[in-house]
Every structure is written in C-alpha cells, then in structure tokens.
C-alpha cells in the first residue's frame, strides 16, 4: 500500500460536524481545516481565523514549553456550545474550533478558530467572540515549563 493510500484511508469518509469541534493531541494543518470549513457552503464569502501559538515568554519569564490538560467530555461539550452559539448569535455560516492538549513545543500551534460568513464583519465578530469565550468557559489548563520550575497558569485577562 502506498503512503498516499494510507493517508486517504485514515481520513473520515464524510466531513461530519464532529470534525468541526475537536480536542486533540496532534498538530493540525491550517490548510486542511480551512478546506473543511469551505466545503460546508458555497455562500461563504469571508473567513476570519485565529491561531494561538506557544510563546517563549510569559509575564516576563522565559518559557521552555507548555503542557495543556483538558477535562475530556466537558471540554468538547463547551467547544460544541461555542460553535453552536457563534453560528446562532452572529449569523455566520460555519465555525470550526480546535484545541490541542499534551506537551507543546514553543512556536507550535495550540488553538484554531475559523469563522466563515457571507461577509467579513460577521466573520471577524464571531471569531473574536469564540476565542474569548473559549478562554472563559472551556476546562483546559496550561502548565508552563520555565527554567525555575513548572507553573499552572491561572489568569486569562
């Protein structure tokens, strides 16, 4: 079996809604996720995206790496609520919400929000609301690894 066949077999046959809200250990491809959202409707005319990545500084201290822990089940439930409310309240066509867990190297992707609408204004608004809401209501915790030790991050200003 060629590598290409293996890759195709590993992908889901249909793009169901479950793929639009995920908490996963592995990295994601922004191109693939954009394609997934664009396939949902031909009425999409504006897409806003937020990508959160791992910084090497936090509150003036060096950070060597980050570990994310999540509450399996509740985290997915809250992300599904965010997607549904963003679609309902902001009049956007589709929203994708992905968050990684486990150990993340500095510079790597952490979180991705894609909001697709007919026009840019709704897309921007839904995207900003979704990432702010994610930080408020999603049970995901961040452990920063610093030269002085490990610190659970408490605030989300």
């Amino acid at each position: 079996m060629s590598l290409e066949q293996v890759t195709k077999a590993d992908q889901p046959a249909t793009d169901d809604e479950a793929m639009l809200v995920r908490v996963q250990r592995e990295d994601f491809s922004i191109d693939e996720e954009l394609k997934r959202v664009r396939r949902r409707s031909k009425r999409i005319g504006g897409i806003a995206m937020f990508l959160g990545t791992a910084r090497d500084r936090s509150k003036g201290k060096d950070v060597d790496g980050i570990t994310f822990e999540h509450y399996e089940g509740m985290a997915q439930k809250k992300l599904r609520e965010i997607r549904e409310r963003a679609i309902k309240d902001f009049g956007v066509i589709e929203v994708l919400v992905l968050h990684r867990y486990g150990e993340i190297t500095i510079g790597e992707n952490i979180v991705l929000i894609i909001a697709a609408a007919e026009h840019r204004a709704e897309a921007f608004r839904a995207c900003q609301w979704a990432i702010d809401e994610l930080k408020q209501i999603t049970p995901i915790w961040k452990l920063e690894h610093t030269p002085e030790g490990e610190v659970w991050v408490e605030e989300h200003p």
Partner: protein
Amino acid sequence: MVTIQLFGMTKMLAGNQGTLSLSLHDGKRVKDLVSVIDAAYPKIGELLQKKKVLVSVNQEIAHEDLEVNDGDEIALLPPFAGGNR
C-alpha cells in the same frame, strides 16, 4: 462514596492524585462536599471557598445548593487558562 476528578493545580494539591474518593455523611449538596474536601485537603478547601476552584456536576458548573446523586460525574475545576489575550 463519591469520586471527584481533579485537574491542574488541584491534582498537585492533593498529592498528585487524579481522583478523590470521599464519603458524604452530613448532607448531599455541593456545599457539603466542599466541607468534606476542606477537612481533608485544606488548601483545596480554601480555593473552593474563594471560588477560585469551581465544582462541576455532570459537566456543568454547579451551584453550592445542588444535590449530588450517586453516579453523578463530579470534578474540581481550577481557573481555566487557554492563554492570554
């Protein structure tokens, strides 16, 4: 006997345990659960009293007067931190 899932700093404060198993004798509300935790793990109890750590029942943040039933999924949730804005 109820089992409580721990996350983040609460896991550390409980001596790196992922879960706590506790018996509720005097009342079955969330506030009774908080009292039992406070007696066994005062550092976690203090965070619960200050509402820095929240209790969830069946994957929703629970009010202190909510009654806990057998088979409920209970967890202690320290402050969420998806990152800074």
